């Protein structure tokens, strides 16, 4: 294949990738979009395959990796999506580092240097950038994976002088990068890579808890930039375009997640929150009273309402109550009650997680409404059922300027006529804050395991 036809094929693949993302603007077009993505990738891979000499070995490697990927994709549970995505980011990071090493080892084979020539100086900078972004993505995503799969404590891990250590490491990494630029050899390259690997660990360790959705979006972005960086090194447009699409997608998701928590991106990256320190919430010593009721009471209230909005949080998924809640809403719908679900952007552990969990339970997506669209409707709603959510419905975010979550956009469930809250106990949520919603006159607490409570409600409705 001539270089021109290769690049034209890459262009077709790039357009298909753009259509893939465009398809996700609605569930209806999304499946076709995903198909475009597969075709685009097939075009890119087959085109590149025609350029190589080791076709047999490469196909074998693809089969090995492809089998692993297919099995994981089939078996993974929807609650485990964040872990799977984090694990996959790490693979891209590692692959980027390996490709960079191979490029440095034999630049002639990539056509980025003539035989006997050294790697060009501009390629060295790009190689440096691609490698360190890849290395940080690799180890950072491993830490994120371990935290999300609870193999490592989800709590932020912090120690004194952490930022200075990171800054020092960053500067020395840059130093070895410059050394590599001045005289390209393995020693500065490998030291620089090792420092980047260490930095990946140190940067993600202090972040945890409620900030995980930001971390995972950020690493998504990094994995794209790593691919784009390698694209610069290899003068390969395919890698640059696909990498940039992924990079900007992850960056936008990070921004959306930060906005949904009213947090500055830099603040999240530097760690903190999501554990411990915010816990010094206002405890004015006054014994506050709350009303509690049974599942039967809840069933009665909901069964006689005209409209019910369900606010699910991650606690719902933990209790594996998605299917039960779907049954409950069916029972309510058959009694003529209008049922909808309200989703906060940070419900779940990654962007859009709760939507997937509800879709898995066969909740029709047109019943599932995003925060901005449904917030005006709470005032006209008879009953709101909050289940497994806490901070995202805390009115302090709107009313209490001294609250650590003040300014965070919330689902305004306190405006509804009646609020039912299903919780295990009066314990606080991620942010460690008490929730005034629980003590309002219109609120009834229903204590117990989410799944058990919902099943009891279904029985009472029958």
């Amino acid at each position, binding site marked *: 294949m001539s270089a021109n036809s290769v690049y034209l094929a890459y262009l077709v693949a790039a357009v298909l*990738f753009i259509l893939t*993302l*465009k398809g*996700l603007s609605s569930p209806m077009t*999304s*499946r076709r979009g995903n198909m475009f*993505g597969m075709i685009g*990738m097939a075009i*890119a891979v087959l085109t*590149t395959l025609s*350029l*190589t*000499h080791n076709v047999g070995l*490469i196909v074998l*490697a*693809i089969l090995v*990796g*492809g089998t*692993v*990927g297919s099995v*994981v*994709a089939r078996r993974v549970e*929807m609650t485990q999506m964040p872990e*799977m995505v984090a694990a*996959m*980011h790490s693979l*891209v990071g*590692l*692959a980027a580092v*390996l*490709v960079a090493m191979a*490029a440095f080892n*034999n630049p002639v*084979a*990539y056509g980025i240097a003539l035989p006997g020539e050294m790697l060009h100086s501009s390629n060295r900078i790009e190689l440096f950038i691609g490698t360190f972004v890849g290395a940080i993505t690799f180890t950072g995503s491993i830490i994120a994976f371990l935290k999300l799969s609870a193999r490592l404590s989800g709590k932020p891990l912090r120690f004194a002088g952490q930022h200075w250590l990171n800054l020092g490491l960053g500067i020395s990494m840059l130093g070895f990068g410059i050394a590599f630029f001045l005289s390209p050899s393995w020693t500065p390259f490998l030291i620089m890579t090792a420092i980047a690997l260490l930095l990946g660990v140190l940067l993600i360790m202090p972040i945890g808890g409620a900030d995980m959705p930001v971390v995972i979006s950020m690493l998504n972005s990094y*994995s794209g930039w*790593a*691919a*784009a960086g*390698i*694209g*610069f090194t290899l*003068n*390969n*447009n395919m*890698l640059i*375009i*696909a990498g*940039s*699409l*992924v990079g900007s997608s*992850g960056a*936008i*998701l990070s921004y959306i997640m930060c906005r949904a928590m009213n947090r500055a991106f830099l603040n999240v990256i530097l760690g903190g929150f999501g554990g411990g320190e915010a816990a010094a919430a206002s405890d004015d010593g006054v014994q506050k009273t709350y009303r509690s009721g049974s599942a039967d009471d809840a069933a009665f209230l909901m069964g006689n309402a005209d409209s019910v909005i369900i606010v699910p949080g991650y606690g719902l998924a933990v209790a594996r109550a998605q299917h039960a809640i779907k049954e409950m809403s069916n029972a309510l719908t058959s009694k003529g009650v209008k049922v909808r679900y309200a989703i906060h952007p940070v419900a779940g552990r*990654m*962007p*859009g997680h709760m*939507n997937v969990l509800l*879709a898995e339970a066969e909740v*029709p997506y047109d019943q599932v409404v995003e925060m901005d669209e449904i917030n005006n409707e709470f005032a006209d709603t008879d009953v709101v059922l909050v289940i497994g959510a806490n901070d995202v419905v805390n009115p302090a975010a709107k009313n209490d300027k001294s609250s650590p979550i003040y300014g965070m956009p919330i689902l305004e469930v306190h405006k509804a006529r009646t609020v039912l809250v299903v919780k295990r106990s009066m314990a606080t949520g991620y942010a460690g804050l008490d929730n005034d919603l629980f003590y309002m006159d219109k609120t009834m607490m229903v204590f117990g395991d989410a799944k058990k409570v919902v099943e009891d409600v279904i029985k009472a409705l029958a």
Partner: protein
Amino acid sequence: MSGVVDPFVMNLTVFVLAIFIGYHVVWNVTPALHTPLMAVTNAVSGIIIVGAMLAAKPEEMDIGTILGLVAVALAAVNVFGGFLVTQRMLSMFKKKGK
């Protein structure tokens, strides 16, 4: 103006334009599909497989080609895993009464 345009400048042009496209397309993604978006971008970032295949290209095997082959396998996990899990998720999103 004279001389040949440096490849870096061409790369930068493509890079900046691709970011613009990505920015506009991703803002149009419905929040309900943010998890599938992440899964599919995982698959798309598997495009590093192209670089890995080029690393594994030379006939003579050396450390570079071996690294390339390993990278091909790693990226293939992403490509297959990413697209298939996205397909699986998207097939769950159904409208009422279907």
